């Protein structure tokens, strides 16, 4: 009877008994040459398949190298003409061929960090809720799935909703506090970004918190700690690097986000005066101006901007992933 359950995995669905069917006719024994030919065929096919998957894996490496080379090659023109002033130049003037991306760096950093600050309390709350307080049951399942759905909604829909609903609200708020009631700007973009990046730190944090060994927690409880004290003194220090990695991943996502930000940030290439001013991020500049860069240096400057964005996001993502790997080991 035990044999049957092992066979169950290996047999094809069309057999109805879960057992290998032995036919009534004994198959004709294969001639030697046929058997040899079949073996050679199989060996060749096996080699072919092994080579196939090898080259496919190699191709992924070539793909990434190709991306980096393309970006670097196309930015060459701009690197030669702008030099390092590209990164801290305060003026982006395509007419006079002056390309300084400091306003966009500032815009990107402001929106991303503000979004991070706004979203961290919520991400951590969800992570602790699901990892520590309520691990099993249909309520935590529902919460977990809903939070993951936040990440599933397309960015352009967040942008459209932001444009239609959030911008008038922020405009009303700005009128009350006496700032230019534009509605569009860094603050609004940060709000939408904050909503969008909650799931990343939340799900990573949840896995990290669930991995805390039970005996550590039980030791703390046996010493008379309350739940909060266990969280504060045992769980959080233990998962510190994992939580930090979650923050890195959220940050990486926020830095590269394009569509939602482009729709609500106000698209101004000036340095933002305060968090309520309109501005631009590196990604939104590329989105707006790419199809109309009408001379080679302009296009090259935009590609160089893409290269900077690429390098920054990849570094942050890799740091985050390394920390997770280090934590799991």
């Amino acid at each position: 009877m035990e044999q049957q359950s092992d066979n169950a995995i290996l047999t094809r669905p069309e057999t109805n008994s879960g057992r290998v069917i032995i036919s009534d006719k004994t198959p004709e024994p294969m001639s030697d040459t046929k058997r040899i030919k079949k073996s050679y065929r199989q060996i060749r096919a096996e080699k072919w398949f092994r080579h196939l998957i090898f080259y496919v894996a190699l191709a992924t490496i070539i793909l990434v190298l190709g991306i980096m080379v393309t970006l670097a090659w196309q930015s060459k023109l701009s690197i030669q003409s702008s030099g390092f002033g590209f990164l801290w130049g305060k003026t982006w003037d395509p007419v006079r061929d002056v390309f300084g991306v400091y306003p966009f760096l500032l815009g990107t950093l402001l929106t991303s960090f503000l979004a991070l600050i706004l979203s961290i309390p919520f991400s951590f709350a969800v992570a602790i809720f699901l990892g520590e307080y309520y691990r099993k049951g249909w309520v935590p399942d529902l919460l977990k799935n809903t939070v993951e759905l936040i990440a599933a909604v397309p960015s352009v829909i967040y942008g459209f909703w932001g444009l239609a609903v959030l911008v008038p609200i922020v405009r009303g708020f700005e009128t009350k506090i006496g700032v230019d009631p534009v509605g569009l700007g860094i603050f609004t973009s940060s709000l939408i970004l904050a909503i969008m990046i909650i799931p990343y730190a939340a799900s990573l944090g949840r896995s990290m918190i669930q991995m805390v060994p039970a005996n550590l927690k039980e030791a703390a409880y046996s010493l008379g700690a309350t739940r909060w004290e266990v969280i504060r003194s045992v769980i959080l220090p233990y998962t510190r690097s994992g939580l930090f990695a979650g923050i890195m991943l959220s940050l990486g996502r926020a830095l590269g986000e394009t569509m939602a930000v482009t729709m609500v940030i106000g698209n101004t290439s000036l340095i933002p005066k305060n968090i309520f001013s309109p501005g631009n991020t590196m990604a939104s500049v590329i989105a707006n101006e790419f199809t109309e860069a009408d001379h080679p240096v302009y296009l090259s400057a935009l590609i160089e901007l893409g290269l900077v964005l690429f390098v920054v996001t990849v570094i942050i993502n890799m740091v985050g992933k390394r920390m997770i790997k280090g934590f799991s080991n």
Partner: protein
Amino acid sequence: MRNHVKYRIGKSIGFQALTILLSVACVVPLIFILVYIIQAGITKINWQFLTNLPKPVGEKGGGIANALLGSIIIIATSSVIAIPFGILCGIYLSENKNSKLAYWSRLCIDVLQGIPSIVIGIVAYFWLVKPLGGFSSLSGSVALAIMMLPIVVRSTEETLLLLPDSLREAAYALGMPFHRVILKVIVPCGISGILSGVMLSIARITGETAPLLFTAFGNPYLSTNIFKPMQSLPLLIFNYATSPYNDWHDLAWGASCILLIWVLLLNISTKLLTRKWKVQL
């Protein structure tokens, strides 16, 4: 002493309440957004909406047929490119865990996952639009395929790693060659994990706009030619949402509603599929 203990317990309960409050508060914006979009968009959807082409600026009665067809074609083409590629790569990574190539390949897949979608759009422009001399939905599909790749590869790799080694060994013991072991035994066993990775990757690219901005470009007519520009739902939403015309806003709401429901359905079906496999995607 008793008061101090009460204080500590009070803090603990307070923190728990705070956690619950924040977690629930987290979910509120999402529910609000979903309800708003569905309610704003559902009234705009009717048969005309789904089958008409956009009308000239300012005229009523336009529809989104070109965007619907375009989205389907672009996603189908991306899937055809990315899925075989991704599954084969995932197979390599799970079968050769410790080789040098696997290490670098995994690293590159991680890098790919972190690249902003607009940068991938730039690269696709230089690889496909310029050489082919024009915008095409194929270039958009390639950009989207590059974005699908990491998700498919990781889900395939992790699903296959979860399968017991005894399965492989039993198949080898029966004398099966390597490719048969993989294609006839391992992959079918892990098919639901792989399938959920595929569905997740499709859900991811359905809503992507940035790479399509300068690859697929847009088209007011129905088109099935992948070497020419094509319209897609997210592109349409972006263009119409930022326009001043109320008719176009209505179209954008309807399109957002459809896109949202499409993506949510994909994600929910994936979750139901992954129940069987505790795959960390």
